[in-house]
């Protein structure tokens, strides 16, 4: 436990002593702020629905920047030789690093609460719907980060890790669109099920469905298990 906590703290320190965390949070807040202004002040609707939708796609493009360094940087800097010879199981290292990245996610999510101030000042938004949206957003982010972490265990090159992660996440975000081109119900069902965006839409509408929650958590669990298994195997 002590060791896992130490790796987690080191992870956070690494994020905040390099420009990455600041860059990601800044870009995310600028983007979210812009979408919020556009959606609320131009349309006059006091909901977060459209903003959440935009935050989702923004997240999918920013996650690779957070996750690319998780393991790739350790391999390229030679620090993996220290990390993987510590008295820690691979899953402990994976979990510690993952929680470090999730902490960044939670921080950037929390910072968007600023947007709610004018919403509540000038309108009467539905609090439960907004909460559901935030829950969905964090779950979406957790699934994306776990996938990004897995891809960063596969390569020494951070850029390669980021590019693979971006391609896969964008694919999973837009895969729902393929439904319209399918005749087979099975394929339509599959594409719908795999779609990161469709599950997220439920949350935005205020629905916290067990299926959607489980979907993101299962994706994260599979990616993390694969990462730990891969680290063990590559020895």
């Amino acid at each position, binding site marked *: 436990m002590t060791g896992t906590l130490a790796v987690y703290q*080191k992870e956070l320190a*690494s994020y905040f002593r390099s420009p990455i965390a600041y860059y990601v949070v800044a870009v995310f807040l600028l983007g979210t702020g812009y979408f919020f202004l556009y959606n609320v002040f131009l349309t006059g609707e006091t909901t977060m629905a459209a903003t959440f939708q935009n935050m989702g796609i923004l997240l999918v493009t920013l996650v690779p920047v957070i996750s690319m360094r998780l393991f790739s940087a350790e391999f390229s*800097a*030679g620090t993996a030789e*220290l990390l*993987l010879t510590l008295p820690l199981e691979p899953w402990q290292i994976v979990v510690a690093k993952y929680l470090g990245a999730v902490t960044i996610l939670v921080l950037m999510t929390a910072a968007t609460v600023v947007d709610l101030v004018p919403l509540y000042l000038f309108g009467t938004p539905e609090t439960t719907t907004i909460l559901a949206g935030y829950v969905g957003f964090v779950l979406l982010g957790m699934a994306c980060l776990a996938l990004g972490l897995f891809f960063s265990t596969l390569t020494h090159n951070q850029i390669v890790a980021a590019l693979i992660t971006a391609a896969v996440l964008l694919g999973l975000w837009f895969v729902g669109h393929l439904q319209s081109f399918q005749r087979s119900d099975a394929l339509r069902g599959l594409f719908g099920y795999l779609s990161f965006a469709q599950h997220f839409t439920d949350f935005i509408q205020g629905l916290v469905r067990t299926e959607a929650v489980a979907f993101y958590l299962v994706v994260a669990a599979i990616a993390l298990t694969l990462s730990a298994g891969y680290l063990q195997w590559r020895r």
Partner: protein
Amino acid sequence: MTSDSAVITLEAVSKRYGSRTVVDDLSFTVDEGEIVGFLGPNGAGKTTTMRMIAGFTAASTGRVRVAGYDMATQNVEAARLIGYQPERPPLYDTLDVSAYLRFVARAKGVRRAAVPAELERVIVACHLEAVVRREIFKLSKGYRQRLGLAQALLGAPQVLLLDEPTAGLDPGQIQETREVIRAFGEHHAVLFSTHILAEVTLICRRVAIINHGRLLAIDSPSALRRAQEETHRVSLQVSGPSTEVRDALLSVKGVIAVDVHAMPDNAGLLAVDCRVEPRQGLEAAIARAVTHRWDLHRLERQEPTLENVFLQYVKTRPDGA
């Protein structure tokens, strides 16, 4: 092969990457209170062997044990007992020195209350006092190397694995690092690789020579030298014409080869290097052959150096021999 006090034991260890064999059937032990030097040309398999002992990679076949733990299955348990300095210091550039050491100490399971004293100990031992607050990316190569050693010493390991710990250090720092290794090796097991052969002679009880992933010899430095008697040399300084000196020396029975060159700072004086058979009284015969015609300024029998021993092993015993 296994002795009671063996802390590191390798039994018929091989490592293959695809069809490439990097380490081939390697067996040796390192005892408690012993410093073993690990010699071999670049690419001989030293780093891979170190990584297998440290638990970073697993052996393809054979068994690596550290303090009784099988590194294939119990590497996490054994990790507490191992201090490992990889060839490239495993440093997080964005952290400062003390934050880095604190991280390693905590990750190795040092109790929070014991961390400050533990940090103090390795900072003093590795002479890092001046850079404690400095960010790692600003450190010179010598400091990086010593910080790599400092992290290996954290957490009271019983075994130290050091992959070229003195590379990139200046002579003073090399001296200090050797002292750290020597002090640690009095009560623990140390395996360290190096390119500096003098270092091995100075601090190691035994030397392991490997090439092409195979163990060629493991013994004390002096025993290794004795085993290679054919590398004996006699060197002398003579004033005389070079071709005639060479011919006169080659006519002495027991002289195998002669190398003559002019002394750069003293015109007329020749520096001569003879490779000779290992037999008594040869110096006298060489002296007689020279003194009756020219002036002999100096004559000296050169004991075989570890350099020669090493080169002999590496050259004459290619893989499979």
